[in-house]
């Protein structure tokens, strides 16, 4: 069964400051989108699976995000928990030629 994957242009890279995250509403769904200092972009589910912390408000480096509420840390690529059993969903994200952030979201 193939799931329909939709590519969404969520906005220009500059909508997210370097080293931070922002919440975007993409086709009715909210995602946390991050931009690293190296201008790589990542997208995860909006809320931390622990107690719903806003992941976009977390501290990031080039590979992980720390939830601002209780410091659970997740790998931005795989979504795997670094110091926790919890894990988050991630979405493929990239920067298009026109400088826009593109996120792939499955349709369900």
């Amino acid at each position, binding site marked *: 069964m193939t799931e329909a994957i939709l590519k969404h242009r969520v906005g220009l890279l500059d909508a997210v400051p370097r080293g931070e995250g922002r919440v975007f509403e993409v086709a009715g769904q909210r995602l946390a989108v991050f931009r690293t200092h190296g201008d790589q972009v990542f997208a995860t589910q909006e809320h931390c699976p622990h107690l719903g912390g806003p992941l976009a408000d977390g501290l990031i480096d080039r590979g992980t995000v720390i939830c601002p509420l209780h410091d659970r840390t997740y790998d931005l690529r795989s979504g795997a928990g670094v110091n926790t*059993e919890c894990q988050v969903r991630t979405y493929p994200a990239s920067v298009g030629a026109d400088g826009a952030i593109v996120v792939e979201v499955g349709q369900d």
Partner: protein
Amino acid sequence: MDGMTFGSTVRKLVVIGNGMAGARAVEEVLARGGAEQFSITMFGDEPYGNYNRILLSNILSGQQDHSEIYINPLDWYKENSIRLHSGARVTHIDRAARVVTADNGVQEEYDILLIATGSRAFIPPMEGVWAEGGRLRPGIFAFRGIDDCNAIVAEAARSKRAAVIGGGLLGLEAARGLLNHGCEVHVIHLGQHLMDMQLDTAGGAMLRRAMEGMGVQVHLGKMTTTVLLEGEKVAGLRFKDGTELACDMVVVSAGIRPNAEIGSRAGLTVERAIVVDNTMRSPDDPHIYAVGECVQHRGKVYGLVAPLWDQAKVFADQVTGANTGAEYLGSKLATKLKVMGVELASMGITEPASDADEVIQFSEPKRGTYKKLIVRDGRLVGGILMGDISKAAYLMQAFDRDSRLPDERLELLFDLGAPPQKVTLDEMPVDAQVCNCNGVSKGAIGACVADGARSGSAVMKATRAGMGCGSCKGLVNELVEWFCGGEAEEDPSIHYYVPAIPLAKPELVAKIREQGLRSVSAVFAALAPQGEDAASKPPLASLLATIWAGEYEDERDARFINDRVHANIQKDGTFSVVPEMAGGVCTPAELMRIAQVAVKYQVPLVKLTGGQRIDLVGIAKADLPGVWQDLDMPAGTAWGKSYRTCKSCIGTEFCRFGLGDSMGLATRIERRFRGIDSPAKMKLATAGCPRNCSEAMVKDVGLVAIGDDKWEIYVGGAAGAHIRKGDLLCVVEGEDAAMQISGRFMQYYREHAKWKERTYSFVPRIGLERIRAIVVDDADGTAEALDQAMLASVEAAYDPWKEAVKPRTANQFADVVQAEMVGGGDD
């Protein structure tokens, strides 16, 4: 995945029950090379990996969180090639065919079967307790598993008044946990005193006082006959004596019943539980063993974990052939109550059995201290320790090992003279149990150190000592230190200022200065071997702000969310806003604006804080700029690792005892130091006289007027997570001097404290004498530099709420940014 082929020597081990005993037994088997001998399959009817049931009490009280109590995560099963059928309940054992069947249809053959089904909560007969289909009525709960715990927490949030039936160990832990959820809590106990299995009358009475002191109401000698209902909802309890208690939820904790039915159905001997011999085997079937709470050994059924660790070892020794002579000979029971705020340990009998038994007793009811030991033939057969349990570790060992007690009985209850800790560690026998939860002996800790572990944390990780209820952690650390000959190694990284850079603070500061690193990215690029590290960012940002003041390059991504949006994040992702109210004073106009803002933005809660100001709680991020603009007051910096507040009392202005203008000085302090970054919060207070109404003696810096324009300056005080009376640094004359010395102290602290090290740790670490020499007497000739550095920071400070009109970063205050779609379809 059943297509695996096994060599003829590989036997099939099937375990029913994935609880504390079952999983430990498998670990012990693996530790004896069992992975080569057995293919292992486990059934557990709880849909989880294996967790530490003991810690459910902490989950209920909110001290710990689910993810922290797993012993073996699902990966562990994978790594050890254990097949786990979780959420599957074994219903049938076919002993002839050696096959077990679960309720989901799964069947497994076995060569060795281990029954470790544990027990369940006993629900005494009460009218109204059961709903249709044999379930407990909504609003009534047992307290045994994670699901129970979650259901109790959810109900407690809605509940006004909870009743716990049963005043034993578990019932009291449940009651204490419920208190934290804000309901009124009643404990209903059948016996004449609490914890009657572990305490005597006097101890029970004292425990009752302690529980009542915390707010738990205790009802003794009450037998519950009926759960009263209002429609389908629980409305109260009726007791045998005709009295009633209104309540809207009930937790039943009236004992346990072994899950032994599976054994009787299979034709095994079951009395109170599944009967086993000294090898943990059923006398009826050489292929079947049992361990844990579902077991009856020599007529005894246990309800604590210590015995099952021993049982698991014997089982593993037997089935792997590691030691076929291994025998389980029964356990002696000692317990500690895990109720926050009550120190209680108990072991063995609670009353002397005959006149020959010697009783040593000490009681100081006012302080909640009670100690009682029962000695027979010079050996400890029972003990109760309440209030002060400093001798518990020693006594529990003496009890467990049946060792001879010293003749000086008083030493048993108190540490006399010099701290005898070293002696005690020396004297402690090698096989004395240190961690009762995980069955780790002094010898095992020694072996672990000999194998190369050099720190407490390494030993705890390797042996699991201290990983149960945690009450033995101190002792484990001391033993590691002792085994290392006092040279236990610290993990070198504990000296680093941040994890990503292998430098202590002074070296780091020197490098930053030398290389002129003014931004967090520059520091990572120059000094961090692995580059950027999220957790290291805020401490570096704070340090750079201290070093460079106005010349620091403020990269917002290096700041915690609070410092990006200048408010304190709350559990639901909203923020709290606390405007500055220097000295606790505000004008009527400001008060009205606060009220108007609260109305306009429908602020869910307006609260007076413990810091003498007003908190607007529950504000959406997107509303922050509007709120600040409408308030038109400076930020109170109630969110950061920075200068926070200066509380004050009414002082000379109005108070008949006032000796100094505490309100005026507090206002000056607030205006000068607001917004200054620091390694941890700096909270100040001024008091107009030594009556100390503003609690200045327990602040990071406290100024107390003593008359003649003189101020005492206290530093390193605390009354938060730690309580410490501040140390008197000096007495100065005049407000200017008071401000100067306070500022100099704060600057010294900013430059030298570790990240998140409050002054209550910093001052004792550096030593008051040394601080005084530098800050007051200028022994190092650095006073001028400290004053200058503080002045530079004061001048660089700004009111971040001004960003309301001039945001610093893109979408800084957006709750959500709308996106547009460009393409679609499969790729």
